[in-house]
């Protein structure tokens, strides 16, 4: 266990192995502009695809006339649902969504038709000429209202996607102290910077090659195959450069559309969403309406927890069922509850579809459970940190689904660590205007500024859950090139910016003792790597790479033992050579292998998880939990309603930091996204329509908004995980926002039961 500063990493004396922070292999092309993102792809004879989307949240399509669009010069194709050759359904968990609308549209922005033309502007103008005759229908635009039996049905079988019931312990026990609240969370956007893009190239075998930015090539391939009516060998996907993801690329966007246009025209088709279309082109974080009630004794020891959580999934299911699983099963936070009554609902509405975003259900619940823990502390007259420590999960404790936590659960320690980090200096009356809430745009000189401090602690599952067959595949090859041993690692696991490519290299260097490791392009020519989500790739694909390396190493050492006559158990690989236990070089790999290639492909799984009991919600649903705590210090201008986050410090258990610099990067970036939800980020939806689909009106934190962070890294190895790793991608996104909200509540004395917290909530004028 150790604390890590956020100073720039030492660039000398790097081994490039695990625990080190070697430079990322794609760093140079990314700073020179040569890295090929999905929107940068280009072929001589390519044409451009665009999408016509529904202007209505709910409508019947009476007819579509593509004639005027097709008549335009430069237009190659205009396609609708009638042109989908396979089954016109896609979806991550339920295939409930047409690739192109079929007689009905269920949300504003649903794809209705697609156009290919020789210039993107021609394609856009042509799309405007498609005549769609809509008959508007009543729309369901509120999550709770959607559960009313009299509500209009979004799909024929009703508006409920999933209801998770969790019951544990004595039903409804009394308690001397009861606290409750209602909380709402707005709809957050992933706001990755690289818009949805890709290039589909028709192939001579009647298939298609798709170069696309995604989080999971193989789940895309399955859906594209279904829509195109083609077998997997004819739909080949290659990962193009990904400009961020954060959950927003789990679902398909332009994949099927570009392939349809390419196969129809026989030309390569490029599709690039602009920012406005991007807001309609991917799922968002579910808005949540929550009611919570906790019972405790006079000391603040929890006796029961009750919660009703309603997540608005929008028009199509996407990953709503899994988000419900998370929001429910971890919905009361990392605390011990003898009795539990949780009902978590995911519903269909005619709002924009919602699905995966970093934190995946735990983010919404954390705002409620952390606000209520503060309420409980205040009620029993205890320190807010102490009440959390008193109730915090410890290793061996059962959580609310009855799962015993079988590795570190350092809730109390994380809180202590974050509490004990140095506090920022107190506000200076003569301070720089730039340090005030609102910065230089401020219209006061800080007369009404008050400071507040807030804490939050949360936990999140790592990997896919509830019995999902969660695996990854790695192919590792060792050969001699130019007289030196070279290792090539091939997985389909998507690099989206997090640094998996670096981690794959580090694992190969560590296991095979070879410095030069090439990361093969990510594609469907190797087995599935699973999704780059749920903080799972270092764990699961890392596990697969490690296992494939071990298989290669066994073969190489077997050969070395046979060649040299030395016992296998005394041989290892280091520095490109086979080395004896004494440290003596036995034989160089270049000599041992000659022109031979050693290659192994391994499919690797983590421990199985189980479905939750449908009646009680009990079961070992998750393979691993990751914990983090934040402390926020804010200055709030109570007259202007503006907030300056002065400090946002954190402690997180990462199990084992494979790449400490990348771990810090995940924590800093995740923290910023959580802060964004607390303060500014919301897709405003009125009557089913998005009011702010632009970076002018949807605000994300800038460099002016983020404080420098103090970060305490704990490394309690998980004995069940490769190298002891614990997923690091999401926890910081979950605990940062509730800490910021708590600090603003403390500063202002206002209840603030909704995020993002707007100026008018702080001033009490709205």
């Amino acid at each position, binding site marked *: 266990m150790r604390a890590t500063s*956020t*100073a*720039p*990493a030492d*660039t000398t004396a790097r081994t490039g192995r695990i625990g080190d*922070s070697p*430079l*990322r292999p*794609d*760093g*140079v092309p*990314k*700073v*020179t*502009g*040569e*890295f*090929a*993102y999905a*929107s*940068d792809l*280009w072929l001589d004879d390519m044409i451009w695809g665009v999408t016509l989307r529904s202007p209505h949240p709910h409508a019947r399509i009476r007819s579509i006339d593509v004639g005027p669009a097709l008549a335009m010069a430069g237009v190659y194709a205009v396609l609708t649902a009638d042109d989908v050759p396979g089954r016109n359904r896609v979806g991550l968990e339920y295939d409930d969504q047409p690739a192109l609308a079929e007689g009905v549209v269920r949300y504003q922005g649903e794809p209705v038709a697609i156009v290919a033309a020789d210039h993107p*502007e021609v394609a856009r103008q042509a799309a405007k000429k498609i005549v769609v005759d809509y008959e508007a229908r009543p729309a369901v635009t509120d999550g709770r209202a959607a559960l009313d039996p009299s509500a209009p049905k979004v799909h024929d079988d009703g508006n409920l996607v999933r209801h998770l019931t969790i019951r544990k312990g004595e039903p409804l026990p009394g308690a001397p102290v009861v606290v409750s609240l209602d909380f709402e969370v707005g709809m957050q956007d992933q*706001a*990755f*910077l*690289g*818009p949805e893009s890709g290039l589909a190239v028709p192939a001579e075998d009647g298939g298609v090659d798709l170069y696309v930015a995604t989080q999971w090539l193989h789940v895309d391939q399955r859906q594209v195959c279904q829509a195109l009516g083609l077998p997997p060998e004819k739909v080949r996907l290659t990962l193009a450069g*990904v*400009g*961020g*993801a*954060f959950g927003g690329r789990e679902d398909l966007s332009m994949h099927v559309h570009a392939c349809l246009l390419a196969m129809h025209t026989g030309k390569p088709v490029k599709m*690039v969403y*602009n*920012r406005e279309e991007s807001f309609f082109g991917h799922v968002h974080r579910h808005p949540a309406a929550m009611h919570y009630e906790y019972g405790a004794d006079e000391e603040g020891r929890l006796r029961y927890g009750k919660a009703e959580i309603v997540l608005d999934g929008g028009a199509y299911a996407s990953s709503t069922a899994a988000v419900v699983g998370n929001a429910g099963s971890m919905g009361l936070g990392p605390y011990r509850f003898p009795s539990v009554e949780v009902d978590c609902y995911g519903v269909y509405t005619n709002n924009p579809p919602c699905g995966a975003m970093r934190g995946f259900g735990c983010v919404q619940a954390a705002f409620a459970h952390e606000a209520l823990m503060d309420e409980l502390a205040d009620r029993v007259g205890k320190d807010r940190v102490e009440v959390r420590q008193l109730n915090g999960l410890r290793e061996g404790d059962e959580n609310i689904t009855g799962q015993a936590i079988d590795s570190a659960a350092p809730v109390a320690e994380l809180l202590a660590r974050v509490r004990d980090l140095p506090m920022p200096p107190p506000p200076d009356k003569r301070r720089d205007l*730039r340090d005030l809430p609102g910065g230089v745009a401020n219209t006061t000189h800080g007369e009404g500024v008050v400071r507040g401090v807030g804490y939050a602690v949360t936990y999140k599952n790592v990997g896919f859950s509830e019995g999902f067959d969660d695996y990854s595949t790695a192919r590792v090859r060792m050969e001699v090139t130019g007289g030196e041993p070279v290792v090539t690692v091939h997985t389909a696991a998507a690099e989206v*910016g997090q*640094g998996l490519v670096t981690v794959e290299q580090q694992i190969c260097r560590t296991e095979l003792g070879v410095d030069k490791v090439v990361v093969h392009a990510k594609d469907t020519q190797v087995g599935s790597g699973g999704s780059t989500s749920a903080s799972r790739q270092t764990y699961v694909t890392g596990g697969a790479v490690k296992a494939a390396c071990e298989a290669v190493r066994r073969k190489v050492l077997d050969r070395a033992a046979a060649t040299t006559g030395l016992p296998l158990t005394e041989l290892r690989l280091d520095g490109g050579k086979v080395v004896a236990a004494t440290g003596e070089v036995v034989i160089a790999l270049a000599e041992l292998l000659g022109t031979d290639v050693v290659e192994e492909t391994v499919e690797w799984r983590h421990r199985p998880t189980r479905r939750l009991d449908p009646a009680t919600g009990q079961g070992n649903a998750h393979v691993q939990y990751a914990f983090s705590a934040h402390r926020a210090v804010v200055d709030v201008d109570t007259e202007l309603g503006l907030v300056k986050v002065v400090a946002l410090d954190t402690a997180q258990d990462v199990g084992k930091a494979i790449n400490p*610099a*990348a771990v*810090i*990067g995940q924590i*800093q*970036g*995740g*923290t*910023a*996204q959580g802060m964004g939800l607390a303060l500014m980020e919301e897709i405003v939806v009125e009557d089913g329509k998005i009011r702010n689909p*632009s*970076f*002018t009106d949807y605000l*994300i*934190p*800038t*460099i*002016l908004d*983020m404080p*420098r*962070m103090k970060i305490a890294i704990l490394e309690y190895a998980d004995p069940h995980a490769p190298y002891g790793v614990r997923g690091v991608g999401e926890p910081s996104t979950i605990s940062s926002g509730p800490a910021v909200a708590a600090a603003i509540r403390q500063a202002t004395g206002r209840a603030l039961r909704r995020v993002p917290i707007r100026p008018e909530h702080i001033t009490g004028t709205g």
Partner: protein
Amino acid sequence: MRVTTTVNGETRQADDVWPGESLLYVLRERMGLPGSKNACEQGECGSCTVYLDGVAVCACLVAAGQAEGRDVVTVEGLATGDALHPVQDCLIEAGAVQCGFCTPGLAVAAHDLLARNPQPSDPEIREALAGNLCRCTGYEKVLDAVRLAAERMAATQ
């Protein structure tokens, strides 16, 4: 229409440019220079920052015709041969590159800042880069990178 500009020191010409095209589109799609990025195309994110006659601008907000006869430097023009500019080296070394989509714009904006102000304070770095959105890093390593580049450039002068 035809647009002729100097890009990274070379005279470049694009034909059949539709008047509605931006400098960004012409660079990316007609001149084979996709380094400048298309994240918002409305001047909010800074990913397409280039120099236009020595002034850092969002290429998405410059009509292609406005670039006629002018001098453009893009992210592709920051390095000298294989030698990266210190700003580029330091973005990598500080860990300020994750997905990297904001990086080309940040590199040009930071390059511009250090040309104007070789020893910027943290508030000055923040002000100069406030128009460059990054969704991955939380910006701290970007600050680290700019400070590191300033130190390195000072040491080599």
